[in-house]
């Protein structure tokens, strides 16, 4: 029996009074599939990193309490034996491989485990077959899609054959096909191979009839509780409701002014076709919501619109081919609110960040009072001297939104702008965005999975599916 038991486990950062994990007492049962949910940034990863034996080594900060595999404290397992007990799959598909090709990475894994070289080929073949990726064996990892990379990551784990598999939001950036396939593979590993699966995810899609236990990390008490069926059902229902919006939007009639036009547009990085459009218009002073599954190319399209990625065909902004507009003026006209807030920051402190936007903004639409007011409404006032990288994920997102609103570009592209925001903040931000559109004539294009609360903002809805983008009335 190797239950994973967490006993009186408390973790907090030395500079903060808030406990990230507050006296956790739970047991992830042997041979079970446990789901750990809770809002982004609530501390799920921290717990998983401790279970996987990566913390405290990589955090440098230890926790109080202990984690046991069966009767053995994880700290008593010799370093070189840890990977027989537990392996981890990470959120970012791009940063979990040390080697260049799939076969080299898998060999590296087996060498680390001191497997006899004669046995390696069989183990690798079996693991790749199990994950359905035999054809990727000799591929260079950098050229794989996110979904393929996560399959390779799973194949590595299958080859390692640990008792416990820990996964930290492993599907955050991969397409729905890969997601479903990987979840089924995990279920198979649990049922047929007796593995213990502990998976953290805030997106609850397709887990309902699959998981044995549903744990919830409460962001207020910082405690984890095991939910009964009724409570779990409540969370699944609640999650589904954030994925819908009760509004039928109009299809553009052609009376609006188009501001960005794509023609004969084709996007195929690494030779896999993501998007092909004969002609598509985005409209001036409208908020267009783009929906579609993870990993199918929505963010990649934004990268093409901001000239970060090459594309085929033409993009016209305000009557001019964007290839003929100089980089600085174009970037100040068509601006991207990055999904990762840190990408937007250039300075160290909150005040420096705000001052930079105030100094370089396109126009003086927002007064100092407006800015102070926005900061206050989002509970960001009085944090002038804070280092931006030390803010919580939610605070980073709020600061990022405010500083990009101050820049007040004519077109603002937003990639998952509500991620990590609580519902009240979301409503406040929607208010800001409506003001920018009505008073300052801003055009907004938003990629978002969070739909509830956006009713008053959305004018048009474009669905991204089957390598195509089409305006649709119903948002789902």
């Amino acid at each position, binding site marked *: 029996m190797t239950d994973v038991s967490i006993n009186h486990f408390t973790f907090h950062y030395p500079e903060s009074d808030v406990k990230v994990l507050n006296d956790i007492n739970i047991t992830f049962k042997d041979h079970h599939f446990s789901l750990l949910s809770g809002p982004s940034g609530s501390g799920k990863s921290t717990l998983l990193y401790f279970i996987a034996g*990566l913390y405290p080594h990589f955090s440098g900060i230890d926790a109080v309490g202990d984690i046991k595999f069966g009767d053995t404290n994880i700290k008593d397992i010799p370093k070189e034996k840890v990977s027989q007990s537990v392996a981890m799959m*990470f959120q970012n598909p791009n940063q*979990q491989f*040390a080697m*260049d090709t799939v076969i080299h*990475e898998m060999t590296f894994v087996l060498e680390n485990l001191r497997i006899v070289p004669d046995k390696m080929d069989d183990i690798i073949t079996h693991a790749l077959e199990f994950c359905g990726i035999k054809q990727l064996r000799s591929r260079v990892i950098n050229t794989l899609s996110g979904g393929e990379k996560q399959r390779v990551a799973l194949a590595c784990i299958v080859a390692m054959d640990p008792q416990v598999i820990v996964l930290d939001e492993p599907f955050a950036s991969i397409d729905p096909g890969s997601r479903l396939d990987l979840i089924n593979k995990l279920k198979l590993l649990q049922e047929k191979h007796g593995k213990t699966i502990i998976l953290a995810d805030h997106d609850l899609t397709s887990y309902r009839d699959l998981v044995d236990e549903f744990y919830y990390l409460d962001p207020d008490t910082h405690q984890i509780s095991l939910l009964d069926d009724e409570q779990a059902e409540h969370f699944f229902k609640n999650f589904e409701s954030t994925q819908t919006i009760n509004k039928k939007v109009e299809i553009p009639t052609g009376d609006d002014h188009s501001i960005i036009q794509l023609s004969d547009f084709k996007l195929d990085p690494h030779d896999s076709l993501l998007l092909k459009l004969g002609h598509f218009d985005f409209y001036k002073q409208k908020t267009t919501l783009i929906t579609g599954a993870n990993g199918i190319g929505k963010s990649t399209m934004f990268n093409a619109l901001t000239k970060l990625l090459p594309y085929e065909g033409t993009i016209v902004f305000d009557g001019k081919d964007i290839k003929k507009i100089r980089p600085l003026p174009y*970037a*100040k006209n068509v601006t991207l609110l990055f999904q990762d807030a840190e990408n937007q920051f250039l300075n160290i402190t909150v005040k420096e960040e705000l001052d930079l936007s105030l100094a370089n903004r396109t126009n003086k639409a927002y007064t100092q009072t407006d800015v102070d007011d926005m900061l206050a409404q989002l509970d960001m006032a009085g944090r002038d001297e804070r280092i931006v990288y030390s803010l919580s994920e939610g605070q980073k997102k709020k600061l990022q939104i405010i500083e*990009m609103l101050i820049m007040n570009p004519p077109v603002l592209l937003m990639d998952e702008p509500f991620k990590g925001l609580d519902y009240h903040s979301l409503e406040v931000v929607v208010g800001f965005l409506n003001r920018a559109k009505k008073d300052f004539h801003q055009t907004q294009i938003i990629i978002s999975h969070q739909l509830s609360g956006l009713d008053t903002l959305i004018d048009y809805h474009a669905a991204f599916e089957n390598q195509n983008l089409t305006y649709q009335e119903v948002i789902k």
Partner: protein
Amino acid sequence: MNPGMKLLLVMLIALEISFTQSLTVNVILIVVSFAYILTQHVSMKALFGIIFWPLFPAVGLFVSQWLYGSAGIHFAWILFTRIYAYVFLGATFTLTSSITDLSLTLEQDFHLPSKFAYGVLAAFNLMPKIVEEIQIIKTSALMRGEALHFWSPKLYFKSILSSIQWSQNLAEAMTSHGFVEDYERTHYKVIRITALDWTLFIVLFAIVQVLLFFIRY
């Protein structure tokens, strides 16, 4: 030839020609290296690159020595050919050896800590991501109204920040993939330094010594 031995040989010869002044030997090294590269099915683009790009520093050195130096045109030619000798010698290694094999031999035969060998390899494999990241940093700065150039401290600050984050993630991933520092590992591909490697190394090195000794012009 074993990539580690090859690298060592190339570096030794390059070091030697930095302190000797033989135009003929430089030319011989260039010709031999180029012939070797041609037998290794290298792309036209790479060939063009190693011929074209060194032209700028080589011509620069040549002209400044010829016009303003005190040692005359012969020395100017030595400097000119030296640049090409460096580049072509280097290319016999970089264009024909795999970085993976190099780190394998560094770990197995030269007994470098495996942490170092695989760290270098992992960093090398991150190169395309780094190029992408710099592009993102520059574009993001433009959106905040700032043009960052290659001398802008902010560009370095941001790239270093990303690198620290990546190296941390990578170290975690390697640990999670069972890698333990300074602990014994098995090797699927065993790279040995063979008798042939040693013979080639010694013979080639000796030939260069003989040439440098007898050909002083």
